[in-house]
């Protein structure tokens, strides 16, 4: 029973003990590192197989359709059929492309999507490595994606691809600031950048204490993954598919996998930072429940992101940039200072959290009021309905 209670950790210990019997110490480390790396590196692939099916079903239902329903029961093998198609499809490299850079971009974008999983805690002590700088590592790895996108857009030698790459980079850069600042607020409250510690110290999920940081992070995360309503970087009707328009076969496949891997990763990070990660009823007594709670919360976040995608129309580029710099960045900065001030109040932690919540709600109210006013003014100026 005790073995089951913390099954994953105990199983890992048994495994290590078992291979230690036949191997020297350094080889055990190497084998475990390779094995851990292999499991984590598969996460984006698993995410793609599961989420493409889920997304088609969810969006299908939102649009009053059935979604995939031919390949296997409820169409669950659709993703596998797609994977096979990607693998055996002809690879086309345009004549005028910069070949080495063109071929490197899909590999690099996958590396960026996979490396994120190294610091995500699936359960107590179930984390690739609990780095001291975990929260900042997540943001830093994101810059690999920026580089890969620029490489893909430039090397294709295609105008759609280049315009797409410029839009992506402008968007990634603009939304990275509110994202970093909202992560900074969490780090400020916890006093550590370790992802494990951030989960441990959430006796109340931070989304209930820091709603502004939570909403800012989710919006920035949608923008960073380039999903609707922030999907102007691949806007089919304007620039066809954006930076990966010239890619086909498995090279396109890696972009696709990176996209869904990133979707799952940002949802997992949202869960870790704001929804209490693997914490839940009885997770303290039976840590084996932790990964279950973690997956349920992550899927819930993914569902909300899909819901948003199915509901909202696309932003224009000027609206997208203005929203980041004129709404999210000031709100996030003010929030940071407010939380810092609340932490210095000489009262118990629960009261500090209450003060933070009040301030957050006030910031949210002011922001929404200002947004509503400027929308009304805009409507009046252009003689639109709703003025």
């Amino acid at each position: 029973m005790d073995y089951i209670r913390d099954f994953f950790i105990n199983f890992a210990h048994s495994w290590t003990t078992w291979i230690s019997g036949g191997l020297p110490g350094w080889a055990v480390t190497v084998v475990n590192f390779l094995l851990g790396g292999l499991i984590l590196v598969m996460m984006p692939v698993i995410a793609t197989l599961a989420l493409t099916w889920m997304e088609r079903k969810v969006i299908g239902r939102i649009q009053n359709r059935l979604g995939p329903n031919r390949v296997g029961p409820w169409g669950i093998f659709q993703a596998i059929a797609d994977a096979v198609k990607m693998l055996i499809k002809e690879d086309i490299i345009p004549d005028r492309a910069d070949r080495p850079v063109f071929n490197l971009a899909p590999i690099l974008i996958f590396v960026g999507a996979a490396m994120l999983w190294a610091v995500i805690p699936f359960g107590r002590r179930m984390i690739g490595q609990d780095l001291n700088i975990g929260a900042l590592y997540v943001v830093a790895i994101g810059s690999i994606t920026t580089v890969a996108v620029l490489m893909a857009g430039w090397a294709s030698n295609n105008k759609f691809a280049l315009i797409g790459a410029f839009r992506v980079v402008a968007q990634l850069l603009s939304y990275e600031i509110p994202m970093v600042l909202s992560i900074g607020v969490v780090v400020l409250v916890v006093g550590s950048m370790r992802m494990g510690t951030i989960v441990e110290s959430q006796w109340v999920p931070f989304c209930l204490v820091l709603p502004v940081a939570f909403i800012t992070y989710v919006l920035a995360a949608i923008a960073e993954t380039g999903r609707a309503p922030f999907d102007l970087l691949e806007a089919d009707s304007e620039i066809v598919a954006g930076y990966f328009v010239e890619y086909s076969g498995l090279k396109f496949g890696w972009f696709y996998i990176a996209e869904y891997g990133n979707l799952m990763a940002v949802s997992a990070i949202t869960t870790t930072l704001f929804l209490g990660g693997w914490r839940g009823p009885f997770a303290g007594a039976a840590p084996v429940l932790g990964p279950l709670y973690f997956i349920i919360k992550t899927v819930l976040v993914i569902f909300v992101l899909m819901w948003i995608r199915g509901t909202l129309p696309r932003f224009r580029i000027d609206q997208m940039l203005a929203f980041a710099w004129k709404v999210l960045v000031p709100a996030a900065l003010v929030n940071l200072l407010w939380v810092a001030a609340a932490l210095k109040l000489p009262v118990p932690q629960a009261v500090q959290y209450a003060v933070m919540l009040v301030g957050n709600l006030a910031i949210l109210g002011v922001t929404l009021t200002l947004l509503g006013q400027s929308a009304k003014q805009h409507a009046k100026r252009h003689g639109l309905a709703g003025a």
Partner: protein
Amino acid sequence: MQHVMFFLFAIITLGAAIMVVTTRNLLRSALWLILVFFGIAGIFVLLNAEFLAVVQILVYVGAIATLIIFAVMLTRQVMDPKQPRFNDQARVVAGFATLLFVVLAVIVTRVAWPVAIGAAPVDAIQQLGMDFVGPYAVPFEVASVLLVVAMIGAIIIAREHE
């Protein structure tokens, strides 16, 4: 093992740096520069300076390199590999670059740098944060002013061209 890793990172950094200078295609040399930044981040990790490593990637790869690539893409003619490699200022620039190299080399080799013996502190990041607001409070605030000045300058230059 650490020495092997150091030499590996050093070779990556220096090799990529040579490629930056010798590649004819400007965008590719910007990409080689990114590899240089990663090599330096690796060396920071070997020095137990994980925060500097992550900031190196965050700021240099994420921001500075992107800025350089944007700048390359915004300038039309330099992109053409058929343009001549040197212009008439090449010799003057070479002279000053050599001078700068000599000065830096003298500083690096002649100054007795303070070296701490023993393991790096466990809570190095916390120590860094304390130093920011403690002994280095003035540079910390000046950094903020410097950043804003840089931003204002950039805006003024960009506005002028329109």
